[in-house]
Structures are given as C-alpha cells and as structure tokens.
C-alpha cells in the first residue's frame, strides 16, 4: 500500500510518498501562485519520481499553511502534528523538535509515538527564522546555501548586538565596512538566529533528545550554532526539510489502515 503526505508552505511545497517500508519518493518545489497549484506540481513530481499515479495512492494527507486549499487530499492535519510525527519517525529518541523554516520557527515537545505534548510557534517576528538568513545573504550577495560552509571557516568570535533583522542588517553592513571577516560575521549571524530559536524552545522546557528539522537544518553552521545555544547535543535527520510531509504521509498510512488517529487529531486541533 502506498500513501502520500503533502506539505504546502508559504515559500516551498513538499510531497512524500511512503509504503510500509519507508520513503518511496519525495519532491520539493518553490511555492507557486496558489497553494493548490503548488500542491499539484509538487505531488506530480513525487508521483513521477515514484513511477506511480495518483490513483495508486490509498490516502493522502495535506498539511502546511495552504492545506485547506488542496483539492486532492483525503484529509488534513496541522503542521505541528505532522512535524512531531515526522521527527520521531526520523529520530525515534527525539522528544523535542526545533523546526526552523523560512517563514517561521517551531519548538514541539513530543512523546514516543510522535504525538504532540506542547508546542510554541513564532511567525510574528522574522528574527529566529530562516528569513533572517535570507535577508543577510541577499545584503551580502552570498548564496543562502553557502552560508554554512563560510561560517565554519570563522576564526574569530564576534557577537551581533541586534536581534531585530532590520537593525542587524545595518549592523552587519557596518561590520563589513569596518573590515570584519565575512566568515566571522556569518557565524555571528547563525548565533543570533540560533539564540532566538533556542530561547523559544526553552520557553516550553526542552527535553532530550532534541532534533533539528526544517530547511535551515541543512546549514551546518546553523546546526552548530543551535547546538551551542542549547548547550546540549542535537540530533540530525536525513531529510530535515521534508519532515512535515513525512509526518503527513505517516498519518495517511494510519488513515489508510483504519488506525484510529485520535491522538494526532486531538493535537491537530490545538493549532486551529
């Protein structure tokens, strides 16, 4: 039996197809004009990668900010529930999930089944989100994907005094003008984002193990910075950016098998 999860965010859309043995195929695409269009495009890509048709999918769960606008899904689940479920599947010992994406940052406490116990969410302030990295990368004309490697070359520790993205941008430009090393600046930037995310996570009292997910987890410098901000070890997963879609697919599997997913449904209701 194959099932699918589709996570439509404001910036990217992800789709994952799984069977009883694990991930069959996945896809990721930049968001298009409408959530429906994004969902269709990314799902077509995943189906194509798997070599199957939509009619082969027994159940499909939609999640993410655009989840209510996906016509082809059988049910929808909250992002938080999907992220919790996906993270525990990817890292079974994880009890706290810190997900940093482009538009938001979430900290989720989960039980061994991946059900959500508590969570906190920031999408009000760009600081502590991937957008902080994007704004600075744009200002410094550096590719977002290069930030991690650049920061790892840093030899000198500097600290940004501003937490606000707008003020930090000005501060960083003057650091550049004063001749500071770009690698040192980028490391400082990673620490600024990580400190903010760690503060959010600590507000719900973190429990070990902690796993980092979201697109930002692919940045090795950010991973190190978050580890140091938390002052504890941090788990990595193979597919941080499609974690939410994995969780959605797992819930699709539950639904297809007729497993009462009451736990997850209940958690889902928390976010509405």
């Amino acid at each position: 039996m194959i099932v699918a999860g589709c996570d439509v965010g404001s910036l990217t859309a992800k789709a994952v197809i799984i069977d009883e043995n694990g991930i069959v195929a996945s896809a990721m695409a930049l968001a298009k004009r409408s959530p429906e269009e994004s969902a269709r495009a990314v799902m077509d890509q995943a189906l194509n990668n798997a070599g199957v048709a939509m009619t082969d999918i027994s159940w499909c769960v939609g999640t993410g900010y655009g989840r209510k606008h996906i016509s082809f899904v059988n049910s929808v689940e909250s992002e938080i529930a999907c992220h919790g479920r996906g993270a525990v599947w990817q890292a079974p010992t994880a009890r706290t999930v810190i997900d940093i994406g482009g538009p938001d940052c979430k900290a989720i406490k989960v039980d061994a089944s991946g059900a959500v116990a508590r969570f906190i969410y920031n999408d009000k302030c760009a600081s502590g989100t991937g957008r902080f990295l994007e704004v600075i990368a744009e200002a410094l004309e550096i590719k977002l994907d290069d930030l991690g490697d650049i920061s790892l070359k840093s030899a000198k520790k500097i600290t940004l005094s501003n937490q606000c993205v707008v003020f930090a941008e000005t501060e960083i430009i003057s650091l550049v003008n004063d001749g500071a090393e770009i690698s040192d600046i980028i490391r400082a930037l990673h620490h600024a984002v990580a400190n903010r995310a760690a503060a959010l996570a600590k507000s719900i009292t973190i429990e070990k193990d902690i796993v980092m997910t979201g697109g930002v987890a692919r940045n090795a410098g950010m991973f190190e910075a978050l580890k140091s901000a938390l002052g504890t070890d941090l788990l990595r997963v193979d597919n941080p950016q499609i974690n939410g879609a994995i969780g959605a697919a797992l819930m699709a599997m539950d639904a297809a098998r007729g497993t009462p997913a009451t736990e997850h449904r209940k958690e889902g209701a928390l976010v509405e």
Partner: protein
Amino acid sequence: MMVAGCDVGSLTSKAVIMKDGKMVESVIIKSKARPGDSADAAMGQALSKTGLSMQDIGFCVGTGYGRDRISFVQEAVTEIACHGKGAQWLVPSARTVIDIGGQDCKAMRIDEQGNMIKFTANDKCASGTGRFLEVMAKVLHVELGDLGALSALSKNAITLASACTVWAQADVIQYLNSGVPVADIAAGINSAMASRMSIIVNNIGFERDVVMTGGVAKNAGVVSALEKLLGLRIKRVTRADPQLAGAIGAALIAMEKAQGGKS
C-alpha cells in the same frame, strides 16, 4: 546669551541656537557616516546662517545617539532629558511625549518643568520606529516625508498582517504587485506604525496633553491613526519643527548650565 543644542541621531542630525529662551536658528540635516561629522555639519550650517561663530555660543549641549562623539560641546546629556525639556518648550501643557526616532520609539511622562517622571522605549525591534517607515517608503518608491499626505488620499486602506518590518515589507510588495493603489498601502503602513506605537504609549499610561515629537510627528496619517487608537487628540506642535525637540531641549539645558550650573 547665545546657547546651542546639537542632537545627533541615526538618520538626521539637528542643531539649534537659542537666545533668552527663543529660537534664533535651526538646522536639520541627514546624518553622515560619523556622528562627529554630522554634528560639525549641522552646527556649522546653523552658525553660518546666523553669521555667528562658535565663540559666540556661551554653552553648547550635545545629545542623541552620537552625543559622545561631538567635539565642540561642553556637555553631553541623555536624549530623554532633552526630549522632555524640548517637548515642554514646544507645548507647555504637554505631560506625555511620544518621540519617534530613526531607530527607536520613546514614550515619557513629564512634569510642568519638562522633567521626566516615567519613561519607556523600544529600541530592540524596528517596528514602530522611524526605520519601519523608512523601509516602507523605499519599497513604495516615495519620499519618507510624503507618506502622510499620500495616505490622506486613501479610500480603502489595506491591513498589514504582521507588525514585523521584514514580514510587512513582503506584504507591501505583494500588495504593490497585485495593483493596490499606493495611497491605500501607505494608509495601511501608517496604521501599522500607529498601532505598534500605541502599545508603548498604553504601557506607560498617558496623561494629557499628549504630544508627538520627532520627524514622524509630521506624518498626519500616523498622528490621526494614533489618535483613533488612543481615543484622544494629540496636541499639535506649532512653535517649531517637532523634529527639533531633542536639540531644543539640549539648548535649554545649555542655558540652565550657563546660568549657574544647576542641572
């Protein structure tokens, strides 16, 4: 005796020359890279307009974020002390002052002498500060000073979903791309600005009269949106440019210092 005040801010620098409690000359310039250069330029222009030289100034006080880098002042005084005094000179009945700077928003309660009683500020987040409007004006390709007049033309103001400057900027770009009139966007921007400011003002608990100083006080859109949110009329500053409040306060303190060192 002639005294002077020089207020070096992050965006603009101001110099004021006063005599016997009356303003003789004032200058507002865009700040330069170095605060010392901004101060020299602003004060230099004020002096040359009056045909005076620095020797004619009995006492000069510096304030603003660059106050410690001004070469020609006898003393540097905090912005809060200066803004209270300046606001009281501009509007004697003022008891609550809202001052929007280039990168902060201050709210203070003052007594009838302009002494600060209570104070609160936001300088951590760009939202609700002059920087928010500066970023938005840039996105709209309009002059910062035109945002107020522009929003007066609005018929159907937009609502920005987020207070964060970064997210609001993305919102504004989207509205522009979807063809929403610039005036409606400007009105939404001014409302967002006022709503963020109102949090700080409510926080301190205001007492009448309420006045607004700083460059944003000249933005009628923000002022009227804030009046609606606070449910009161904000007393307009007419005696001088509200942006000069800090420099005026600095000059008034310079006068006190010159007249016998009471501080």
